[in-house]
């Protein structure tokens, strides 16, 4: 008998390998140290005038950039050396000022044709690239309490409006307890409140004249999800402000948020920005006749240069905003729905009742810090000074008296509406968030790690290759070709899937390479056994050897794969990185160890009758 693969099988295998090589290729192009310049707000354009300023500033500083390019309103300046990059960052920040964010970046040098098929180099984890890692925890207890307090004040307002007399509304043990004036008021109060507060479960304690509202597990989860989402939004906004390339802001588990900022070394600065607070203020637009002392002028957030005058008097603040979301009116035009808590609603209705027809502005207030270079005793000293930035995010006409729920209409499009809602939420009082863990990983340590990791892979691979060649000779060559293909495919998969490579991930690769050999050892041992123990002809031995080994390889790999999948689903961070490379490695090794070696064996031995097999 002869061993041949049909043409389509050979072509398919070669195609997979070719695709693998293409997608692994970007990793061979080293990244350029670069500086990325963006406007500190979306409205600030980065154009050719900025490019000229950048080029002049670099020339004055004696730095020759490798290339300066503009891409979607960001300016990318590439350098030849990392030390130039850091020097240039300080230089450019000083030259461009606070309106622009200058961030360190690693710019890929992948050629266009590779980029056009979606190929990219693999993401390096923080431990390999350096940067800071924060783990933050959202205070769920406080989030829940906040929600209950908002409800409690809504209940007070409603009951008062409906003239249902109550003695007290209090928040206790995750419940809102409403003490009514008399027992027979319980039913009307419940039926009135139920329509507004459908997410609550109502129970009555008639003896104590109590109406108890509690959230079920599902509703509690919803409140928690909301609190985490709100914090995620806020954190993303702030991270964008840091101008970090490829930041990661991710929910982790029920109440945690992971923030990873590659390339950032100054933990303190990052913490200040992440922990910064934003707020909202609602103010009436100043009348023309108003006393100038009672008037303040503010810029629009999205239209720098344009200003409006608002009264100094504040109606209410973001602390009283319970929620802001995008909605649609009857004509399907986008709007922002705002919900205030009881106190906010009261203040709002008092302030708007006599002022229908006037306009009300919403101010977004951020507390930030900036670095200034000042001369002190002839020396240049960096000083950090806190400052507050106020800008108008909305100025709309009051159509009628507003209460605790109102909406802002007349917004251009859905995108603008969701941005406004997002800003409102960011400025609203979010559930408190704490730093649980912080890590700074130096870039030098990262470099050393990656060097060592790669060195250990190379040495390990070389040893395995030598051993296989010595032990199996020709079949050893097949196995080594398969092993190399395996590495290429694994790298291609990791790159294409956008997986992040970490140190345990590298360890996972090394382990799969060691174990990938196992499949070939199994196959070769089977072929040997067929020939020497059962006296089967070489061609038949190859066939049965592969066949019998396949069942074993499948069973063994599926069990390991099960473990890897479970590690991935329950693990975090390092465990996950390890599981990803292990499971992908198992998949690629199944393919290479069986199909790729078989193709080679068929090519070399399959087409002729042979007496002996050098195995």
């Amino acid at each position: 008998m002869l061993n041949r693969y049909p043409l389509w099988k050979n072509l398919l295998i070669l195609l997979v390998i070719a695709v693998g090589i293409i997608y692994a290729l970007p990793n061979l192009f080293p990244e350029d140290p670069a500086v990325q310049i963006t406007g500190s707000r979306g409205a600030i354009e980065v154009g050719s005038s900025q490019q000229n300023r950048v080029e002049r500033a670099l020339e004055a500083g004696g730095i020759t950039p490798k290339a300066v390019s503009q891409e979607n309103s960001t300016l990318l300046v590439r350098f030849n050396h990392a030390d130039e990059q850091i020097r240039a960052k300080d230089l450019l920040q000083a030259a461009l000022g606070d309106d622009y964010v200058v961030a360190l970046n690693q710019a890929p040098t992948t050629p266009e044709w590779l980029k056009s098929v979606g190929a990219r180099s693999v993401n390096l984890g923080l431990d390999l690239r350096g940067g800071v890692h924060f783990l933050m925890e959202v205070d769920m207890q406080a989030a829940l309490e906040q929600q209950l307090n908002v409800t409690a004040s809504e209940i007070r307002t409603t009951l008062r409006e409906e003239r249902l007399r109550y003695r007290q509304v209090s928040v206790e043990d995750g419940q809102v307890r409403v003490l009514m004036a008399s027992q027979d008021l319980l039913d009307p109060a419940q039926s009135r409140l139920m329509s507004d507060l459908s997410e609550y479960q109502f129970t009555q304690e008639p003896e104590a004249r109590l109406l108890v509202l509690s959230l079920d597990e599902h509703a509690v989860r919803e409140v928690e999800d909301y609190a985490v989402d709100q914090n995620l939004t806020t954190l993303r906004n702030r991270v964008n402000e840091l101008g970090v390339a490829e930041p990661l802001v991710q929910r982790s588990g029920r109440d945690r948020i992971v923030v990873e900022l590659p390339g950032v070394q100054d933990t303190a600065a990052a913490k200040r920005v992440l922990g910064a607070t934003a707020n909202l203020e609602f103010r009436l637009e100043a009348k023309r006749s108003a006393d100038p002392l009672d008037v303040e002028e503010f810029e629009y957030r999205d239209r720098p240069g344009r200003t409006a005058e608002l009264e100094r008097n504040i109606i209410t603040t973001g602390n009283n905003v319970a929620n802001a979301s995008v909605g649609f009116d009857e004509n399907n035009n986008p709007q922002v729905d705002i919900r205030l808590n009881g106190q906010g609603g009261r203040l709002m209705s008092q302030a708007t009742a006599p002022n229908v027809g006037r306009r009300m502005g919403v101010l977004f207030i951020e507390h930030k810090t900036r670095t200034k270079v000042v001369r002190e005793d002839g020396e240049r000293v960096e000083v950090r000074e806190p400052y507050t930035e106020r800008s108008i995010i909305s100025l709309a006409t009051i159509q009628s008296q507003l209460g605790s729920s109102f909406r802002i209409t007349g917004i251009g499009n859905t995108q603008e509406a969701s941005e406004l809602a997002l800003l409102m939420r960011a400025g609203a009082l979010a559930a408190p968030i704490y730093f649980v863990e912080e890590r700074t990983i130096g870039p030098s340590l990262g470099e050393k790690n990656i060097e060592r990791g790669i060195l250990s892979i190379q040495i390990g691979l070389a040893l395995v290759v030598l051993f296989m060649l010595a032990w199996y000779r020709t079949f050893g060559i097949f196995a080594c070709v398969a092993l190399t293909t395996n590495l290429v495919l694994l790298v291609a998969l990791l790159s294409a899937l956008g997986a992040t490579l970490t140190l345990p991930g590298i360890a996972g690769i090394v382990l799969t390479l060691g174990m990938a050999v196992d499949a070939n050892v199994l196959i070769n041992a089977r072929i040997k056994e067929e020939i020497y123990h059962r006296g089967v002809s070489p061609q038949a031995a190859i066939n049965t050897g592969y066949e019998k080994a396949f069942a074993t390889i499948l069973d063994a790999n599926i069990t390991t794969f099960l473990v890897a999948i479970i590690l991935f689903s329950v693990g975090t961070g390092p465990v996950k990185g390890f599981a990803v490379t292990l499971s992908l490695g198992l998949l690629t090794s199944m393919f290479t160890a069986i199909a790729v070696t078989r193709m080679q064996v068929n090519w070399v031995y399959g087409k002729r009758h042979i007496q002996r097999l050098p195995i």
Partner: protein
Amino acid sequence: MSKLLNINIDFMRARRLAFILSAVLLLASVGSLATQGLKLGLDFTGGTLVELHYQEAPDLPQVRDQLEAAGYENFVVQNYGSSQDILVRLSQGFSPQVGEEVRSLLGDENSVELRRAEFVGAQVGEELRDQGGLGMLVSLLCVMVYVAFRFQYKFALGSVLALGHDVLLLLGFFSILRIDFDLTVLAALLAVIGYSLNDTIVVYDRIRENFRTVREGGPMKLINLSINQTLIRTTITSLTTLLVLFSLLIFGGEMIHNFALALIVGVLVGTYSSIYIAGTLLLSLKVSREDLALPVKEGVLEEDGRP
């Protein structure tokens, strides 16, 4: 190399010895785990970790004296990678200044450089430990179901007991030698589960095949035959894996040192257990040909039969 193929070692004759060896090692492991537990790394206990780079190799006892004199308690000072790098671990909570405080205490900016200072929260450690433990339990369960489905429940029991044996011995190793048990070691432990299982399944796969096709000999003889038939493969695979792991241990740097060490011990224990424990357990569970009889029509069985 064909002469190596005709191995016929009576592994099962030494099974009592192996049982005693395993029992002693297990007792020592459990004893050590019960009395002194694991030396949990900072990932689990929480605290502050400061890495410093010296221009000239520092004298560690002197560094310890300096820290003690400054009022630090419960700290660990150790070399990290090279003689010029040291790692200071403090059980106190983290504040942004700690790193700089320690650095300025130990020398001026020119001679000592702060490489990193990080905080590891104990609570995080707890969460990860729970997840790791849960992961292990769920993995074991899934594997048992799969093996019971593909083989038979006695094989499932045998493979999982062999796994438990490996995991306990590995934990015992880290407990007895007081080596830091950190997250990378946990990852290694989970990998060992995969590896050792892989090894055991390959042996079981052969046992299943031989029970179905070889007509003469009792369970003991067949298990012995299967182990011998897979011995070369077991050895070569362990050898190639160990080659890679040793290169990790030696060249991979300090951060994956313990990871590599855990895997090396795990691979050795896993290889031993797949030869001795997995097979012997099957004997103790009274595995028989009937357990693996294929529900097939007559004649089909002949396909696999030998002349």
